C-alpha cells in the first residue's frame, strides 16, 4: 500500500461514515471507533512532525543533509561557509549533528531552501574524490606497457637511464605498492614483473620469434 491508496481509503471511509452517521450506534462499533480515533491521533502527530521538520514541503534539503553523501562529506566548516553565503548568517553550533539541525533551521528561516539544496548538491559533487594520478599518468602507463614488451637486456638498459625517483613515480602510477624501505633493485624487479604481466594481459606482449 502507498500513501495515495491510504488517502483514498480514508476519503471513502469518511464519505460512508458521514452518510450513515445519523443512524449508527452500538457498543462494539463505539469501542472500535474509539480505537481508530486514538490511532488517528497518533498518526496525525507523526505526520505533523514529519511535515514540520520539512517546512513548506521542502523535503530535499533535509534528505540531502541526512543522506550517506551528507554523512561522508559534510563538515562544520562547509556548513558555516554555506550558511554565510546563502543566508548571510553565522552558524553557532560546535558539533556536527547540532550544526546540521541549525543549518536547516536557519535556511528555512531565510526561505532559501532552493539555494540550500543547490549548495549541498554542488558541495557533494565537488567532494567526490577522483584519483587522477597526475598529469603524466597516461605517459607513465604507456611507458610501463612498453617496458613490459622489452627483452631482458633492453629492459635493463632502459631502467639504467632512470633515477630511483622516476622509478618510484612509475611504480606508484601503475598500481605497484612499495614502502620507503623498498630498494631500487627490488622496485626494478617489481616493475619488470608487473609490466610484463600487464603487457601479456592486455594482449600487447611481444610474440616470441619463430626463428
Amino acid at each position, binding site marked *: 500500500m502507498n500513501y495515495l491508496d491510504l488517502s483514498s481509503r480514508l476519503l471513502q471511509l469518511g464519505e460512508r461514515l458521514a452518510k450513515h452517521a445519523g443512524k449508527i450506534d452500538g457498543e462494539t462499533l463505539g469501542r472500535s471507533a474509539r480505537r481508530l480515533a486514538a490511532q488517528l491521533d497518533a498518526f496525525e502527530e507523526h505526520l505533523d512532525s514529519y511535515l514540520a521538520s520539512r517546512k513548506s514541503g521542502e523535503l530535499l534539503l533535509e534528505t540531502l543533509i541526512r543522506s550517506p553523501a551528507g554523512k561522508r562529506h559534510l563538515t562544520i566548516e562547509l556548513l558555516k561557509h554555506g550558511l554565510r553565503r546563502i543566508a548571510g548568517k553565522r552558524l553557532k553550533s560546535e558539533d556536527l549533528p547540532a550544526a546540521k539541525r541549525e543549518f536547516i533551521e536557519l535556511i528555512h528561516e531565510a526561505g532559501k531552501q532552493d539555494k540550500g539544496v543547490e549548495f549541498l548538491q554542488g558541495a557533494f559533487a565537488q567532494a*567526490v574524490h577522483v584519483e587522477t594520478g597526475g598529469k603524466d599518468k597516461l605517459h607513465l602507463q604507456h611507458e610501463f606497457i612498453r617496458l613490459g614488451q622489452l627483452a631482458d637486456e633492453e629492459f635493463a638498459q632502459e631502467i639504467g637511464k632512470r633515477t630511483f625517483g622516476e622509478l618510484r613515480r612509475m611504480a606508484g602510477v601503475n598500481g605497484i605498492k612499495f614502502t620507503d624501505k623498498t630498494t631500487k633493485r627490488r622496485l626494478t624487479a617489481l616493475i619488470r614483473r608487473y609490466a610484463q604481466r600487464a603487457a601479456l594481459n592486455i594482449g600487447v606482449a611481444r610474440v616470441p620469434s619463430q626463428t
Partner: protein
Amino acid sequence: MSSKVLAFINFKGGVGKTATVVNIGATLAKLHEKKVLIVDLDPQSNSSVWLMRPDRWREHVSKGRRSSFQIYDDALHGKARFDFDEAVVKGVVTWTGFTDLPRLHLLPAAVELLRIEDRIHELRAPVVYQILDSALGLHFKGYDYVLLDCPPNLYSTTKTAIFAADGCVVPYVPDYLSLSGLMVLAEQIAEMREKFAPYLPARRKPNIAAVIVSHYRQAGNVFRLAVNELELSLSQLHATGLLSDRATLLQPYIRHCVRVAESTSEHLPVILYAPGSIGAQDYCDLTQRFVDLFEGKK
C-alpha cells in the same frame, strides 16, 4: 522529458550488474529526484526480487503476464497482451508495508524469459532487435533514466537492450577474467554498431559509455594492479577505435561491503537499508559522477 536509456551489460556473471542498477537507480530517485525505470531482462530476476518481496514478485509476475517476458512473448506470437501500466511496480515497499522511493519504477522479469532465447531466432532482423524499443520506447519518454538490467550473456535479449539504449554501462570486477571479457565485449558491441546502423537514428549508436568497478578492496597490490590493467586496456581500446573517446572509467570504485549483500535479503536498496554504510556512501558518490557524465557536467 529527455530520458537516458542505458543498458547494463557484461557477459561475465557476478560482476555486480544488478547491485549497480538497483543502487544507482535508488540513489538517482532519492537524492537527485529523478524519475527512474529499471527494466529487468534477466531470467534470474535478481533486480526484481531485490526490490520486491519474493511472494509479491511471484504473485505479480504469475505466468509472466506482468513482466518483461510478455513483451518478447507478444513479439513471438504476434499479440499485444503486454500492458505497461499494469506491469510496472511503482516504488519500493518497505517492511512497514508502505511504499518508499515513489520515483523509482520497476518492470520486473519472470523466469519464463528462459524460454525466449530458444525461440527468438524465429524472428528475423531487424524485427528481432527492435522488440524492446518498439514495446517500451514511448514509455521511456516519461522517465529521466531507464536502466536495463541485462542477463550475463550477449544473446538476443541483451541485443534488444543494446538496440534500445543510448549507451552501455559495463559493471566490472577487477580481475583478469573480467579484463579478457571486456575486450571481447568491446569487439561485439562494435560489430552490433555496424549491424544496427541502418535501423537506428544517426545519433544513437551502440557504444560503451562507462565502466564501473565494484567489489573493490584496498588491501595489498591486487586490485590496484588489476585496475591499472583495466585502464591500460581501455586506453588501448580507445586507440584502436573499439571504444569511443567518451567512454569513461567512473570513480569512485565500489568497495566490498557486507551491508550491500545483506540488503538483498531485506529487499531494499542499500541507501534505504543501511544509509550509513560504506556501500551506501560509495553508491552516492558514484551516482553523482554518473549524473555528471550523462548530463554533460563531466
